C-alpha cells in the first residue's frame, strides 16, 4: 500500500515518458529487423513443397505466406509455383483444408531462367550432341555444363517435366542456375545464399525488374552522389568561408545565415520543381537549341539526366555543407587567426594554412551528411532524371566516357518503381525488401561515419584548447 501511495505521489509520468523512448526504439528496431529478415531471407534457398489437394490437383512450389480466408473459417496459403510459360501464372492460392498430403521430394529442382522467370519441377534428361543423360547423371551434367563458356553451353538441351506431367525443352543457354533446395544441407544452402546475395549486388535487373540484381542502381546512385559532392563541396565551402571569414558580420549576414539554415528544411520536392523548370526546361532546352539542334527532336540535355539530377541534389544539400563547415570555422578560436596575421600572413595564407586545415573534419562531416541525404532522396529525382531501366551505365568505355546527359537508375527510385509499377508486385516484393535494406545500410553507414568523425573532431578540439 505504501508503494501505491508513493507511486501516486511521484506520479507515473516519468514512466510514460520512458515508455515513449522505449516505443521509439522498438519501432526503429522492428523496422530494421523486418528489413534484415525479409531482405536477406529472400536469398535463402527455401524448401519446395509438393502438395496434393483433395481434388487430386498437384501444386509444387515455395510456401510464401498464410492468410485467413475472408468469407469462411480457415486460412489459405500462397505458393510460388513459377512455370509461367506453362501455367500462365506464377502463384497459386491453396486453402489449407483442401490439402490432402504434402511432401518435399529431394529431386525437385528450381531453375532460374532468363525469360519466363523460375521453373520448378523435375529434370528429365540432358542432351548434348546426340548423347542423352537421365536420372542422377542429368543433374550432374547440367550443373557442370553451367560452368562452361557460352558457345559450349549452347549445345546442351534440357528436358524438363512439370509436376503436372507436362514436358518442355529448355536450351541450357537460357538457364542461369539450377538448385535442388530439398536435397541441400545447410553448408550448401549458405553457399547458394552467398552467391545469390552477390549476384543481387553485382548484376543488372532481369525480366522487367522482377528478378536479377540492382548493380546499375547502385552504380547510378554512387555516380550521381560523387558528381553531386564534387559540385557541392567547393561551393559550399566557399559560401561558408565567405559568410564566416569575409562578410561583414552585420544584421544582413545574420539574416542570410538563418535563411541558408532554413533551406535545409525546405521539402526536397520543391528543389525537384526548381530543377525541372530551370535546369531541364530552361538551361537544358537552350543547350539543345544551341549545340545539339541536329539531334532534335531527340533531346540531349533537354530531358532529365545525370547532370541535372546531380545539380539539383547539390543545391538541395548545399545548406547541409554550408552549415557544417561554418560550424567548424566558428569553433576555431580567433587567437589562431590573429596569431597568423600577426606573424605576417595575408588573409589568403591564413585561410589556407591555418583555418581550412583545422576545419577540414567539419567540412568532411558536412559532405558525408550531404551524401547520406542525397542517397536517400527520391522525390526530386522523379522529376529530373531517373529511369526505370538504364542498363547502359552513364560511365563506360565509349567516348566521352562520362555521359552526363544519360538517365540513370537510382536505388531509392528503383525501390519505389518495383514496388508500385512492376508487372507483378508479389514477385518483386522480396527484391524490394533487399533493395530497401541496402539503401538503409548505405545511408546509416554514411551517417555513422559523419557522427564518428564529428565526435573525433570534438575530442581533438577539446584536447587542443
Amino acid at each position, binding site marked *: 500500500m505504501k*508503494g*501505491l501511495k508513493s*507511486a501516486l505521489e*511521484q506520479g*507515473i*509520468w*516519468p*514512466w*510514460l*515518458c*520512458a*515508455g*515513449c*523512448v*522505449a*516505443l*521509439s*526504439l522498438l*519501432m*526503429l528496431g522492428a*523496422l530494421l529487423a523486418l528489413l534484415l529478415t525479409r531482405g536477406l531471407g529472400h536469398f535463402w534457398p527455401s524448401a519446395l513443397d509438393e502438395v496434393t489437394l483433395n481434388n487430386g490437383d498437384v501444386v509444387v512450389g515455395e510456401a510464401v505466406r498464410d492468410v485467413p480466408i475472408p468469407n469462411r473459417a480457415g486460412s489459405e496459403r500462397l505458393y510460388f509455383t513459377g512455370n509461367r510459360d506453362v501455367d500462365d501464372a506464377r502463384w497459386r492460392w491453396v486453402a489449407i483444408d483442401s490439402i490432402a498430403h504434402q511432401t518435399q521430394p529431394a529431386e525437385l529442382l528450381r531453375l532460374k531462367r532468363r525469360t519466363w522467370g523460375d521453373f520448378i519441377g523435375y529434370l528429365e534428361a540432358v542432351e548434348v550432341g546426340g548423347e542423352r543423360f537421365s536420372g542422377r547423371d542429368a543433374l550432374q551434367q547440367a550443373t557442370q555444363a553451367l560452368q562452361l563458356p557460352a558457345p559450349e553451353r549452347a549445345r546442351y538441351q534440357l528436358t524438363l517435366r512439370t509436376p503436372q506431367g507436362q514436358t518442355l525443352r529448355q536450351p541450357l543457354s537460357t538457364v542461369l542456375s539450377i538448385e535442388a533446395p530439398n536435397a541441400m544441407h545447410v553448408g550448401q544452402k549458405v553457399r547458394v545464399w552467398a552467391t545469390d546475395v552477390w549476384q543481387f549486388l553485382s548484376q543488372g535487373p532481369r525480366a522487367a525488374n522482377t528478378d536479377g540484381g540492382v548493380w546499375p542502381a547502385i552504380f547510378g546512385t554512387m555516380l550521381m552522389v560523387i558528381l553531386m559532392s564534387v559540385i557541392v563541396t*567547393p561551393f559550399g565551402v*566557399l*559560401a561558408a568561408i*565567405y*559568410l564566416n571569414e*569575409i562578410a561583414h558580420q552585420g544584421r544582413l549576414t545574420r539574416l542570410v545565415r*538563418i535563411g541558408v539554415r*532554413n*533551406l535545409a528544411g*525546405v*521539402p*526536397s*520536392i*520543391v*528543389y525537384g520543381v*526548381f530543377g525541372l*523548370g*530551370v535546369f531541364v526546361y530552361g538551361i537544358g532546352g537552350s543547350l539543345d537549341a544551341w549545340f545539339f539542334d541536329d539531334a532534335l527532336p531527340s533531346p540531349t540535355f533537354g530531358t532529365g539526366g545525370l547532370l541535372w539530377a546531380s545539380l539539383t541534389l547539390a*543545391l538541395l544539400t*548545399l*545548406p547541409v555543407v*554550408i552549415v557544417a563547415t561554418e560550424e567548424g570555422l566558428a569553433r576555431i578560436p580567433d587567437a589562431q587567426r590573429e596569431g597568423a596575421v600577426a606573424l605576417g600572413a*595575408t*588573409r*589568403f*595564407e591564413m585561410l589556407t594554412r591555418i583555418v581550412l586545415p583545422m576545419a577540414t573534419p567539419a567540412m568532411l562531416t558536412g559532405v558525408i551528411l550531404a551524401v547520406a541525404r542525397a542517397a*536517400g532522396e*527520391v*522525390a526530386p529525382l*522523379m*522529376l529530373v532524371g531517373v529511369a526505370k531501366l538504364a542498363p547502359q551505365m552513364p560511365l563506360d568505355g565509349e567516348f566521352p566516357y562520362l555521359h552526363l546527359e544519360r538517365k540513370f537508375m537510382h536505388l*531509392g527510385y528503383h*525501390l*519505389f518503381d518495383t*514496388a508500385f509499377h512492376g508487372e507483378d508486385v508479389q514477385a518483386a516484393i522480396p527484391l524490394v525488401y533487399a533493395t*530497401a535494406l541496402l*539503401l*538503409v545500410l548505405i545511408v*546509416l553507414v554514411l551517417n555513422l561515419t559523419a557522427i564518428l568523425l564529428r565526435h573525433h573532431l570534438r575530442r581533438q578540439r577539446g584536447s587542443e584548447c
Partner: protein
Amino acid sequence: MTRIRLFHQPLRHLKDRIATGLITAGGIVVLLAILGIGVFLVWEAAPLLLDGDTASLAMLSPLAWGTLKAALMALLFALPLALGAAAYSAFFMSPRLRSRIKPTLEMMEAIPGVVVGFIAGMLLAPWVERHLASTLVVIVWLPLSAGLAGLVWHLASRRWQRRLPLSWAALWLVPWLIAMFIIALWLTPRVEQAFWEGDLRQYLYAVFGLDYVTRNALIVGLAMGFAVIPSVYSLAEDALTEVPRPLMEGAQALGASRWQAVVKVALAAAGPGLFSAVMIGAGRAVGETMIVLMASSNTAMLSASPFEGMRTMAAAIAIELPEATAGGSPYRMLVLAALLLFLFTFLVNTLAELVRHRLRRRYQRLGGAS
C-alpha cells in the same frame, strides 16, 4: 634579402586580393542561386495568380486540405512520443545510456522516406485493415502499459527497484512493451466480439457512418509520425537540456518532486524551444513526399475522417508534374503548390530559428548557460 622580400610582397598581396575577391564572388553566387529558388517559383506561378484562374485555385484546395490533414495526423502521433522521449532523456535517463540513445534516435531521421512509405503502404496498411481494432487498442494500450509498469515498479521490492532503475527504463521497458503488444493482440478479438459486434469496421459504419479505406490518414500519420519523431525529439531534447540546472534545483529545494520541477519549471522555461521543435516537425510533415505518395490513397477529397485517404500537395507534384506541359495551367498550379510549400516551410523554420535564438539569450540572462 630585402630585394627578395620586396619582390615577393606585392605578389602575395595580389594573390590575397584575388583570392578574397573569388571567395566573395563564389559565396555571393551560391547565396544568389539559393535565392533563385524562391524567385523562380514566384516567376512561374505569378501568371496564374495575376490571371485569377479560379478553376486551378479551386483544384488546390483539396490538396491543401490533404496536406494539413496528413501533417496533423503525423504530429498527433509524433508529438506526444517525441516530447515525452525528450523529457525523459533530458531529466531522467542515465547519462551513459543517453549518450547512446540520442544518436540512435537521431539515426531514425536518416531512414529514407521511400523505405518507410513502402513498408507503410505494402505491409502496414493491409495489416491494419484486417486488424483495425487491434491497431487502435495497441495505440492506446502501449503508452498506458508503460505507466502500468511504473505502478508495478513502485509496488515492487527495493531489490527489484535497484535492479531495474528508472534511469535505465528506456531499455528494460522494451521487452515489457513487446509482451504487452502480444497480450493486446491476443485479447483484442475477444474485446471486439464483446463491444463492437465482432467487426469494428462495420460498427464504425453502422454507428458513425464512417467508411474505411485501406491506405488512409491513420496509416500516413503512423508512417510520417515515425519520420517526424527524430527531428522533434532531437530539438526538444536540446532545448530541455539547456534549461539552467539552478532553476530545477531551486524548485526541488523548495519541495517540488522531480516531475513537478520538470513540468512547472523546465517545460515552462523551455517552452519556446519546444515550440520551435514542433514547428520544425510540422515543416517536415508538410513537405514529406514519398511516404504520402506510397501510404495514402491519393484521393483529392475534402474529408476529415481519419479512415479515409488524402492527396497532399507534395504528392500531387510528384504524380502530376512529369505529365504537365511546361507553361500550361496545370503546370503553373503545381508550381504554385511548390511555392506554397516553400513559403510555409521557410516561414515556419525562420520562426522556429528566431524563437530559439531568443530562448538562448534568455537562458544566458538567467545565468546558467550550460
